[in-house]
């Protein structure tokens, strides 16, 4: 396992470096949006509605024009990306945490614990994620917190299975027996030995699923079951722009492209990471 860490420093292909850099740039600029471009998302100005973007009318002061309520699309786009990223990453942290706990408990425990936890994971996989989102939005109301919970709840089984498999593989390896014999505490064994040994597959899984979580968030928001206006996320912007597509196509197309760009960056980096950190899978691709 240690060798993998050395491998990763051996050089990153320029394309992957570019994707990582652009993703970081988007993430940082959008996270800093309230500092860089402080606006109130509720402020509307009907006199300025549906102004053209710069690429249609070079005289326009608005880079991407304004929306149907006269708000600057470029600024909203940053706020939307920010919301989408914050929600997806929070949901992801929740999913990883739940998955880690369940996976370790189920991997170390035997019999009934393991069996029932795996049954729950299986059961959850039998309902497509979008539907779990729909049920939660119906029962708990559509808002940011519900979306985070939905991501956590739909995301954890994947992590739990992965962690469980890894833990089962390494739990009887002698170095863990050894440190137990030396009197290491359980948390110490967990953090020092188990966690460090399942880190690489966990990193791969986290990266790959971040894309799925962004997709879930934007889908729910697009359906009107996630973030609610006047707050905005990428899915909300696509859905708002949809009605103006005949004249002002950019309102829906620009946020759509941002979603595609984010997903592409994440999935290509994730694929590369998988090839790097998990050489067993490489031959299959």
């Amino acid at each position, binding site marked *: 396992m240690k060798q993998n860490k050395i491998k990763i420093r051996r050089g990153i292909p320029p394309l992957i470096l570019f994707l990582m850099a652009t993703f970081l740039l988007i993430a940082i600029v959008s996270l800093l949006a309230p500092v860089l471009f402080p606006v109130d998302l509720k402020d509307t100005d009907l006199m300025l509605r549906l102004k053209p973007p710069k690429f249609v009318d070079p005289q326009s002061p608005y880079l991407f024009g304004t929306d149907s309520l006269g708000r600057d699309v470029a600024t909203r786009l940053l706020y939307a990306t920010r919301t989408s990223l914050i929600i997806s990453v929070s949901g992801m942290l929740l999913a990883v945490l739940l998955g880690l706990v369940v996976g370790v408990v189920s991997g170390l425990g035997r019999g009934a614990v393991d069996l029932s936890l795996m049954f729950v994971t299986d059961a959850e996989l039998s309902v*497509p994620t979008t539907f779990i989102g729909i049920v939660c939005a119906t029962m708990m109301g559509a808002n940011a917190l519900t979306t985070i919970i939905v991501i956590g709840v739909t995301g954890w089984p994947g992590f739990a299975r992965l962690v469980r498999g890894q833990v089962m593989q390494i739990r009887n390896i002698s170095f863990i027996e050894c440190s137990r014999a030396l009197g290491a505490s359980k948390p110490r064994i967990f953090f020092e030995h188990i966690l460090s040994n399942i880190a690489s597959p966990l990193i791969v899984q986290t990266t790959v699923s971040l894309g799925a979580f962004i997709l879930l968030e934007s889908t729910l928001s697009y359906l009107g079951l996630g973030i609610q206006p006047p707050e905005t996320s990428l899915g909300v912007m696509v859905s708002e722009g949809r009605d103006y597509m005949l004249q002002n196509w950019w309102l829906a197309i620009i946020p759509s492209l941002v979603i595609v760009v984010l997903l592409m960056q994440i999935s290509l980096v994730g694929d590369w990471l998988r090839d790097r950190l998990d050489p067993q899978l490489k031959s299959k691709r």
Partner: protein
Amino acid sequence: MKRYVAVRVIKALLTVLFVWTVVFILSRVTGDPVDWMLQSGGDMRAREQLRHNLGLDLPLAQQYFRAIAGMLTGDAGTSFYYARPVSDLFAERMTATLTLGAVVFGVTILFGVPLGVFAALRHNSVLDRLTMGFSVAGYTVPNFVLGILLIFIFSLHLKLLPSGSVGTPAHFVLPVIAMSVAPAANVARLTRSALLDVIGQDFLECARAKGAKESRVIFKHALRNALISVVTILGAQLGYIIGGSVVVETVFAWPGIGTLIVNSAKQRDFPVVQFGVMIICISVTAINLLVDLSYSALDPRIRGRD
């Protein structure tokens, strides 16, 4: 073999029961449906009356079993919003969803499997690279984004195809494309890797050495052995297609159960959502069960085992 089937069937039934229980508990624990219905308040007597009419004043256990009995007899309660039996609402929209789903699944198989096979046979060729590129597009372009792009290009600009609703075969084209690109891409990628695993093996050389024709080697020997993985993949895509149908139906205003479920969720009309989710859960579980059972039909090695 019988034991295997029995265990799988019981597990499937338990799964459905478990999901139902979770949905039931969620719907009772997270809030009072009466509050959602009477958002402006309503006086106490009206609330109690409504509670009684909905059966919400009964003990939880009784509500739970009544709901299960209702589900089994096809009585899934009344929609808050439409004020009509939930089962009627679903019955009249089922055909639209099933036809769309069937066409999408057909397209997924017809494009996905051959594409994967050719990509594997011409490993590292231009076609192979294109297939892999297509599969990246499959999981990086969300279906609602694809739907909107298609409407933008083909309906609004080229004015070739209708952007929504149903009626003629032309109405199918855009929703079917929007829904099948991702599953077809998945199927192509996974079929390719399943076949690549088989192609390197010795028994194909053996078949060739016996003088079998190349087409026979590929179809009879290689493809048959890759078939188990391909069936698993196709089964998994069905679940994916069902999940995608909600979104794509909404984009194209398709009058199926997907649009019904999304609109009901917005109205917090939980009897409809509850029933919808159970239909989905039962279909996905049934598909998974069939996929598992089909292994033994496809693979004699599994058939022999108990």
